[in-house]
C-alpha cells in the first residue's frame, strides 16, 4: 500500500480522553503533571487512562488516590475521584464499590502506602475479594517524603533511614506483596509487571487493562504490582532508573502472574446496596439529641500572650526556622507553644508555611486558620493568607509596595523590603530574622534572653547566630521607627 500517496496523517497514539485537557492544580504548569521527569507514576497513569478509554467506563470510574507522590492523581483523571488517608485506599474503595454498585473503582497506591501503613487494608480487601482493581506502584522507597525505607526496599539498598543499606537482620526481607496476597483464596488476578524496557511497558499496559476488565465483568479482586522508577529519590537519570528496574529490582521481585482465577471465578451477584444515610441513626439506635437551647457563644478570654502566627513564603526563605525560633523562645519563656510546618507535596520548588501558637493557656489546636499575626515573606503568600487575618491583627509583609488590592482597613500592616535590609546586613537569607525581630518588638511577647537562647539552640553555626542577632535587632529597630502602631 505504501506505493500510494500519503494523503494525510491521523492520530494513532495521543492523550487519553480520561485525562483532563488542562490541570488546574496551579496557575502555572497546567500542561504538565507534577511528577518528576522520568517518573513511573505518569507512565502508569497513562496505561490506566487508556484502559478506561478502551473499556468505555470513564463515566462510572472512581479513582481512589493515595498519600504519596500520586496524591494529586485527581487533578489529572477526568473520572470520579476520592483521595484517601495514608494506606486506607482499599477500605475507601470497598465503601465506594458497595454503595455505588455500578461504579468501577480503582485503588491506586504506592508501596509505602500499600505495604506499610496500609498493609491491613489491602490484606483484608483482597481477602474479602472486593470487586475492585488495585494498582500497586512499587518504587522500593517512600518517595514523597524524601526516601525513607519501605517494606519493599531491596536488601542493601540505601535510604535515609537505612543509610548503610537495608539489612535482613535489622529491617527484615523485602515484602513480596503479590506473592503474599496470591496465597489468599479470594483474589482473582494478581500480576507483577515492570517499567524496565519497551517490552515490559507494553506488558504492564496489558495487565492493567486486564485488571480493569475483570472488574467490569464482576469477577472480583485484581491487583497489578508495577515495578516503577523514581529517578529523583534513587538519584539516577531517568534512563538509568529504567535500567535499574530491569537489571536490579526485578531480581528481587520476579515478574509474572501469581494468581489467575478469571476462568473459574464465580460472578457474585452485586452486594446489597448500603442503606440510605438517613436511616443509619435509626439502625444504630442512636437518637437525635437536641442541642441545649440558647447556649451562649463561648468567647475566648483575652490573655496576656495569645499569638496565632502564620508564617508563609517560598521554600528556602527560612519560613520554618522563623517559626521554630519563635516557638522555641516561647518554650524558653515558660509559655505553651506549638509549631506546625506545612509544605507542599512536590519535591521541587513550592511554597512553605507554618503555624505557630504561643499562649499562657494550654493550646487547643496547633492549626492557625485565623492568625492574629501574618508574616508574609512574598506576595503570593500575602495573597493567600491576607484575608484570613483576624480583624485588629498584624500583617508583616516583605516588599516595599503593599499590593493595593490586599489593603484591609481592619488590620495593621508593616510592609518593608526585608530581603533588601537583610542584604545590607550581609546575607539575604537573614530576611526571616529581620521579620521576626519586627514581630517580637510589636507583640512584646517574649524576653530577649529567651530569643537568644532559642537561636543558639536552633542555629548551630556561630557565624549565623551572630548574623541573626543583628538581623533581629534591626527588625526591632525598623518596627520602632515605623509609623504603624
Amino acid at each position, binding site marked *: 500500500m505504501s506505493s500510494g500517496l*500519503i494523503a494525510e496523517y491521523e492520530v*494513532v497514539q*495521543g492523550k487519553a480522553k480520561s485525562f483532563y485537557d488542562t490541570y488546574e492544580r496551579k496557575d502555572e*504548569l497546567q500542561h*504538565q*503533571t507534577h511528577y518528576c*521527569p522520568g*517518573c513511573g507514576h505518569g507512565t502508569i*497513569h497513562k496505561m490506566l487512562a487508556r484502559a478506561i478509554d478502551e473499556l468505555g467506563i470513564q463515566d462510572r470510574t472512581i479513582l481512589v488516590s493515595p498519600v504519596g507522590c500520586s496524591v494529586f492523581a485527581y487533578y489529572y483523571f477526568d473520572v470520579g475521584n476520592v483521595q484517601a488517608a495514608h494506606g486506607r485506599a482499599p477500605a475507601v474503595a470497598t465503601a465506594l464499590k458497595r454503595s455505588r454498585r455500578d461504579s468501577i473503582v480503582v485503588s491506586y497506591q504506592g508501596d509505602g502506602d500499600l505495604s506499610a501503613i496500609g498493609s491491613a487494608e489491602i490484606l483484608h480487601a483482597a481477602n474479602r475479594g472486593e470487586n475492585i482493581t488495585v494498582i500497586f506502584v512499587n518504587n522500593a522507597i517512600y518517595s514523597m517524603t524524601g526516601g525513607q525505607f519501605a517494606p519493599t526496599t531491596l536488601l542493601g539498598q540505601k535510604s535515609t533511614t537505612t543509610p548503610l543499606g537495608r539489612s535482613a537482620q535489622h529491617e527484615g526481607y523485602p515484602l513480596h506483596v503479590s506473592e503474599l496476597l496470591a496465597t489468599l483464596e479470594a483474589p482473582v488476578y494478581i500480576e507483577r509487571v515492570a517499567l524496565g524496557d519497551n517490552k515490559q511497558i507494553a506488558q504492564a499496559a496489558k495487565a492493567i487493562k486486564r485488571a480493569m476488565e475483570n472488574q467490569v465483568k464482576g469477577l472480583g479482586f485484581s491487583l497489578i504490582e508495577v515495578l516503577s522508577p523514581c529517578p529523583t529519590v534513587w538519584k539516577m537519570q*531517568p534512563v538509568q532508573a529504567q535500567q535499574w528496574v530491569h537489571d536490579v529490582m526485578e531480581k528481587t521481585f520476579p515478574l509474572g502472574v501469581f494468581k489467575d482465577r478469571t476462568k473459574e471465578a464465580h460472578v457474585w451477584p452485586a452486594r446489597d446496596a448500603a442503606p440510605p444515610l438517613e436511616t443509619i441513626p435509626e439502625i444504630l439506635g442512636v437518637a437525635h439529641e437536641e442541642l441545649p437551647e440558647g447556649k451562649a457563644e463561648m468567647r475566648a478570654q483575652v490573655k496576656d500572650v495569645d499569638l496565632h502566627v502564620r508564617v508563609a513564603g517560598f521554600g528556602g526563605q527560612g519560613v520554618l526556622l522563623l517559626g521554630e525560633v519563635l516557638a522555641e523562645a516561647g518554650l524558653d519563656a515558660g509559655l505553651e507553644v506549638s509549631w506546625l510546618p506545612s509544605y507542599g507535596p512536590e519535591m521541587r520548588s513550592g511554597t512553605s508555611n507554618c503555624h505557630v501558637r504561643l499562649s499562657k493557656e494550654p493550646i487547643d489546636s496547633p492549626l492557625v486558620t485565623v492568625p492574629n499575626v501574618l508574616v508574609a515573606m512574598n506576595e503570593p503568600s500575602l495573597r493567600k493568607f491576607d484575608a484570613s487575618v483576624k480583624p485588629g491583627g498584624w500583617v508583616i509583609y516583605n516588599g516595599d509596595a503593599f499590593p493595593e488590592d490586599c489593603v484591609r482597613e481592619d488590620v495593621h500592616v508593616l510592609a518593608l523590603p526585608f530581603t533588601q535590609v537583610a542584604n545590607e546586613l550581609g546575607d539575604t537569607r537573614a530576611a526571616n530574622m529581620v521579620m521576626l525581630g519586627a514581630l517580637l518588638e510589636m507583640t512584646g511577647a517574649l524576653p530577649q534572653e529567651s530569643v537568644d537562647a532559642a537561636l543558639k539552640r536552633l542555629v548551630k553555626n556561630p557565624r549565623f547566630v551572630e548574623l541573626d542577632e543583628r538581623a533581629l535587632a534591626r527588625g526591632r529597630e525598623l518596627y520602632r521607627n515605623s509609623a504603624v502602631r
Partner: protein
Amino acid sequence: MEAEKRSRGLLKVDVDECKGCGLCVEACPPHVISMSEKLNHYGYRTATYVGEGCTACGICFMVCPEPGAITVLKAVYRASDEPGRSLRAEAKEVACASN
C-alpha cells in the same frame, strides 16, 4: 519533501508538557528522536522529532510519562491515481506543526 517519500509516521511533541526525561529517545526503535538544544518555558530540553523515519509504532508515546507530551500520527495512503492535492497540503501542514 515529496509526499511519496514521506515517512509512515509523524511525531508531535508538546514542548510545554515535555520534561526532557529522554526515555523516548532511548526507546525509539529507528532512533528518530533527539533532545532539543533550546530550553522550553520551564527550562527543560525537550524531545524533538528529527523530521523523518518515524514508523508510527507508538513506543515513544507508551514510555513517555506525560499524558499528552507526545502524539503519534500515522500516514493514510490513497491510491496513486488519486492525488488528493488538498489533502496533501494538509499533510504538509501537520508535518510543519511538529517540531
